[in-house]
């Protein structure tokens, strides 16, 4: 990825065995993802071609508290495809996981890029703020400081993957490392560089491509218009580490509808055909995974449309219930993954309890209480005609007695 790309786009494509037809098809696919009509495909192709002819756009790919899964998601393409070619239009000057350079050379490449400014910053992983940022040190520097420095001079930031969005699973309870999302951190250090968030664990490489193309499209005129020219949807959440309310920008098309709405198994859901057990006949029939804890109904991403690995498959297609990695605070909100509702984290040695258990206990206690009370009422002889009635309110009787005493 960090290699230099030479020549025009079609040479590149030919070398990689991608036809012009494939390329244009891909451009219209990207257009759809950007919420543009297919008519925008030639424009996208032109932007990509211009990118290939001209100077490469500089980019930095920084890793915070991450598992490099998003890098894997992008790098694990089994054969060279258009996405790779498009991403090679970026001159990725620093990319810890896959760059050839190491040590001082690598650091210098990053410093030079930051100094020059005008680059696209791709950030993968959570921002580690725990122990004053000492939970993540790179080359003796705090990860959060590196992000701040790089963010200040970037044109735009892509926060890729759930961790970069809101801290992801690093943010999950109890979060000793203080992992938070990029937007949340930049809010606290007051860096106003626009951030576009790409959800999921890992994020989809196609979404990164769509946003890179979007950036190439707008960078031609004015990178400052990146946010304004991108159709966005916002989500707000309260960051439990910083205590701030954070507003996140997502590409509208990516978070526009639930997984459930676009799910290929949706028909089985409506028919009431469910998998109750893995390895069962129902599973072999491809029935709905709702009872297996599928979080598709409350996860707003378009995974069923983009899919993974060049649109070959995705989680639900391959037989696993959605675990809701595209939602905010997704681990705490969705664990246990194979249960319908998340467990409530009750303290005081009670541990994690399913809402259904709590409901049944409440109902059971109420029923037992009423039964006991009924027996008491019977013992007190109130059943039938009810109790003898008071002739005056206790309050009035007391008052009268007091008055009488005063006289």
């Amino acid at each position, binding site marked *: 990825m960090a290699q230099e790309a030479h020549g025009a786009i079609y040479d590149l494509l030919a070398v990689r065995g991608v036809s012009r037809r494939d390329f244009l098809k891909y451009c219209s696919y990207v257009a759809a993802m950007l919420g543009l009509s297919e008519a925008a495909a030639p424009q996208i192709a032109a932007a990509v071609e211009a990118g290939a002819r001209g100077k490469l756009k500089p980019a930095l790919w920084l890793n915070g508290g991450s598992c490099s899964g998003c890098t894997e998601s992008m790098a694990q393409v089994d054969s060279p495809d258009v996405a790779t070619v498009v991403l090679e239009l970026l001159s990725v000057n620093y990319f810890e996981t896959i760059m050839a350079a190491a040590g001082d050379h690598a650091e210098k490449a990053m410093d030079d890029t930051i100094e020059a400014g005008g680059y696209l910053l791709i950030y993968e992983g959570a921002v580690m703020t725990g122990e004053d940022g000492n939970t993540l040190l790179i080359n003796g520097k705090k990860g959060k400081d590196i992000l701040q420095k790089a963010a200040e001079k970037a044109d735009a930031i892509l926060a890729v993957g759930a961790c970069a969005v809101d801290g992801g699973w690093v943010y999950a309870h109890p979060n000793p490392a203080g992992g938070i999302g990029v937007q949340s951190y930049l809010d606290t250090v007051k860096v106003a560089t626009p951030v576009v968030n790409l959800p999921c664990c890992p994020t989809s490489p196609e979404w990164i491509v769509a946003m890179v193309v979007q950036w190439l499209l707008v960078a031609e005129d004015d990178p400052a218009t990146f946010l304004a020219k991108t159709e966005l949807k916002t*989500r707000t959440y309260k960051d439990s580490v910083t205590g701030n309310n954070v507003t996140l920008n997502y590409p509208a098309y990516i978070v526009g509808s639930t997984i459930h709405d676009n799910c290929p198994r949706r028909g089985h859901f409506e028919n*009431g055909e469910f998998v109750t057990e893995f390895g069962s006949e129902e599973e072999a029939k491809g029935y709905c995974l709702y009872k297996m804890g599928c979080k598709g109904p409350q996860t707003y991403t378009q995974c069923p449309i983009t899919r993974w690995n060049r649109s070959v498959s995705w989680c639900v297609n391959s037989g696993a219930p959605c675990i809701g990695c595209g939602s*905010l605070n997704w681990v705490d909100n969705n664990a246990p993954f194979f249960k319908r509702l998340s467990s409530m984290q009750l303290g005081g040695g009670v541990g994690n309890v399913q809402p259904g258990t709590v*409901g049944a206990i409440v*109902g059971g206690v109420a029923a037992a209480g009423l039964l006991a009370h009924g027996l008491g*009422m019977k013992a*007190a002889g109130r*059943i039938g005609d*009810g109790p003898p009635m008071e002739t005056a309110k*206790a309050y009035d009787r007391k008052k009268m007695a007091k008055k009488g005493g005063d006289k």
Partner: protein
Amino acid sequence: MSSQAHYREAHPLVFVITHWINLICMIMLAFSGFYIHYPFFDGFMGVARGMHFVAMFVILINLVFRIIAAFFVKTAVDLGSREVDTDIKNWLPQAKNRHQFFETVKYYLFMRKEGVISAKYGSLQKIAYLATIPLTFIQAYTGFALYGPTADWGFFFGGTEWVGGEMNMRIIHYFIMWVFIVFTMIHAYLANVYNFAPSKIIFLWKETEH
């Protein structure tokens, strides 16, 4: 208390009907809600969701109607009485209920022998019957926040974000249903603890003389 007669003035026909609608809708909502929560048999999801949405609209319209009707329909001022007054007066706390809250609690905890003086409804009853109104609206709100066509309306989506996402909203919706179930259990128990005369009047509109 229940040694009194139960006359139709206590529950005019229109409220017998709204009560029936409430009961049927609540059973449909709880049943279909449980099914949507966890489908315990096959082949019913489409019906369960349809049932949930229809019953939800019916019960809301019924509740609004019941509240408006309270300002126009006259009901008995006391149990065993044929004297009537505007229903809302009998529904809200009255002079007769003053100073009787703790006495009522003491009575039900067997800390006093005599029944307490109350109006048509006792202090606890009035609190419970009034509390079910906002509770129904809160339940409707949490439901609409999860309901596809309305979930992204700012009014509902803001609440979803405030509680920390749809999963939490779903759990709140689920727990409020348990509050309704427990309310219904206590309500049915206390109404009929002495004898079934109250059920005869509210369901069958059949008067009982004592």
